[in-house]
């Protein structure tokens, strides 16, 4: 029996494992940290979607009678997490706040990811002067601390939730652009790309169907992790008063700002929005790390 026949038999006996994505998903499922992350983020997504059904009160309804004896009554049966300085139900506000944080996290990362990937692809695949121009611009952006950059952009666009999302998104652009450019540079001269070129595959198709699928995994990981930082940054900008200008908006960062004044008498007002931020950020980070392990063949532990 020749070696070729033996190998063929071996191949027949082994189950097809499916594509690399499917294998990565299988690895991800076996990582407990990843499951916890998915649980945290999943819970928040559900809470955000069904906020009106879950929240016991309206997040904006004021009840000044509750704070007649001073700020602010702590947890009670009627208000599980107490009420804030205007007598609004804290639990309902935290629940509605999940909506803002999730939307803000997803959208700002989407902004950063799309611009960053476009620029990174151009720089990495075209190379030459396009690469120089794009990457020098990214270097300039990276030289400015991201929060400072975001503050600058918000100052330019005016305060509010949408400008904050754009600002946080733009601040993440260089991260994605750099990462994708680096991985594309590594793939561009790979033999399978040369093979595609020698077949006569069009340039655009080579980029989209050969290079990008093989360069994207670190970007996906970075995107998940950036979701966490984006939520923190948005809360931070909210805390600095650059977030939604309507103080009734139940945004976690904005809630922390007002809680600041009552920190000695009602610490729970700062604690619960803070805890919510910690949990969701932790969730995204756990998912990101688990994805990194699942997608990076060098870290494979389960084979």
């Amino acid at each position, binding site marked *: 029996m020749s070696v*070729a026949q033996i190998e063929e038999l071996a191949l027949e006996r082994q189950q*097809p494992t499916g*594509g690399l*994505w499917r294998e990565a998903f299988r690895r991800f499922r076996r990582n407990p940290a990843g499951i916890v992350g998915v649980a945290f983020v999943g819970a928040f997504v559900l809470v955000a979607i069904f906020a009106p059904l879950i929240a016991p009160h309206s997040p904006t309804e004021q009840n000044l009678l509750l704070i007649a004896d001073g700020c602010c009554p702590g947890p009670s049966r009627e208000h599980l997490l107490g009420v804030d300085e205007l007598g609004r139900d804290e639990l309902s506000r935290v629940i509605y706040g999940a909506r803002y944080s999730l939307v803000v996290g997803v959208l700002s990362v989407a902004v950063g990811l799309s611009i960053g990937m476009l620029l990174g692809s151009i720089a990495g695949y075209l190379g030459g002067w396009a690469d120089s121009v794009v990457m020098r611009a990214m270097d300039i952006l990276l030289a400015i601390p991201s929060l400072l950059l975001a503050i600058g952009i918000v100052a330019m666009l005016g305060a509010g939730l949408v400008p904050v999302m754009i600002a946080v998104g733009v601040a993440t652009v260089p991260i994605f652009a750099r990462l994708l450019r680096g991985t594309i540079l590594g793939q561009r001269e790979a033999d*399978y790309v040369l093979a*595609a070129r020698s077949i*006569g595959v069009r340039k655009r198709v080579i980029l989209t169907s050969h290079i990008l699928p093989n360069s994207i995994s670190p970007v996906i990981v970075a995107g998940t992790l950036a979701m966490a930082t984006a939520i923190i940054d948005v809360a931070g900008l909210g805390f600095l008063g650059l977030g939604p200008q309507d103080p009734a908006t139940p945004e976690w960062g904005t809630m922390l700002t007002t809680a600041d004044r009552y920190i000695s008498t009602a610490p729970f007002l700062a604690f619960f929005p803070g805890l919510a931020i910690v949990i969701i950020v932790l969730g995204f980070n756990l998912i990101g790390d688990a994805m990194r392990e699942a997608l990076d063949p060098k870290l494979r532990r389960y084979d």
Partner: protein
Amino acid sequence: MEAKPNGRAHGVTNGVNGRTLVELDDVRVWFPIKSGLVLDRHVGDVKAVDGVTLNIERSETLGLVGESGCGKSTLGRVILRLYEPTSGRIVFDGRDITTASHGEMRLVRRRMQMVFQDPYASLNPRHSVGRIIGEPLRVHGVPSGTDARIRVRQLLEVVGLPADAASRYPHEFSGGQRQRIGLARALALNPELIVCDEPVSALDVSIQAQIINLMEDLQRELGLTYLFIAHDLAVVRHISTRIAVMYLGKIVEVASADSLYDNPLHPYTITLLSSIPIPDPKVERRRQAIRVEGDLPSPANPPVACRFHTRCPFVQPTRCADDEPLLRTLDGHLVACHYAEDIKAGRISPKASAEAAPGR
């Protein structure tokens, strides 16, 4: 250059010997070296291929050997226009493709394909084998739909892989099997020329023989022409009709396979062949090894005149360092050395090699 390609209409015959399929005329591939932060200043060139004139005849296997870094892979790739030639002329089947546009090249690419050295790097890990082999069919629009699937299954059979391999992914295969996949992809469009860039050097020795045999069978059945790039001299001798020896961007000797091995004329060929160990300790001990010393000079700054004179054990004080030897015919070989006759007749003996002496 003597004869132009005979002006007959092309594409009429296949498998007829004696017709030139590829003609390289003084081809140069120089890669610019740039430096500078903002404005890339051009500070020099890596002369990977520097004036190569070579023909590949239809249905032959032309072996191309040389040290790593001598430009043999670049030469293979420039034929497929994966690199742009800096100067010179590339003629494929009577047609000048040196400056052919992308659109024109697409038509020519159907007829020339490539097999790569590293069977792990040359297959896109995210594509199924069926998609990999079917890609050339899709790109060139022949045939479409279900026909393509049948063709893929056919190709798998031709290269000796099971039909269900199409739905699997490259990482499920061994190195030899992957090289078969690469071969199937190269065969998909019924090409005439396949540039094989060290197709077996990454494989186990036992698998090498399989792939070589498969390639020979395919050549016989399909009338393929191979440019077989390698550094394993035994493999090259086995598969090649003719062999070209390359040194630092230039061809130094071309001859039929057996003649090259039995009667090497260029000093570089002599040293290369002398570096093959002989599997007999007695002979091996008695044999006088003629070795090249030092490393390959930088192709960015190659020696003037004869490029080999800095390492040549037969180097002469006259001519070698200031007169560039051109390829000329001698004993049925093409050889680029001023003193080939004298070396062959034994009138010039090699310098004692510093390495060879203490061994005995």
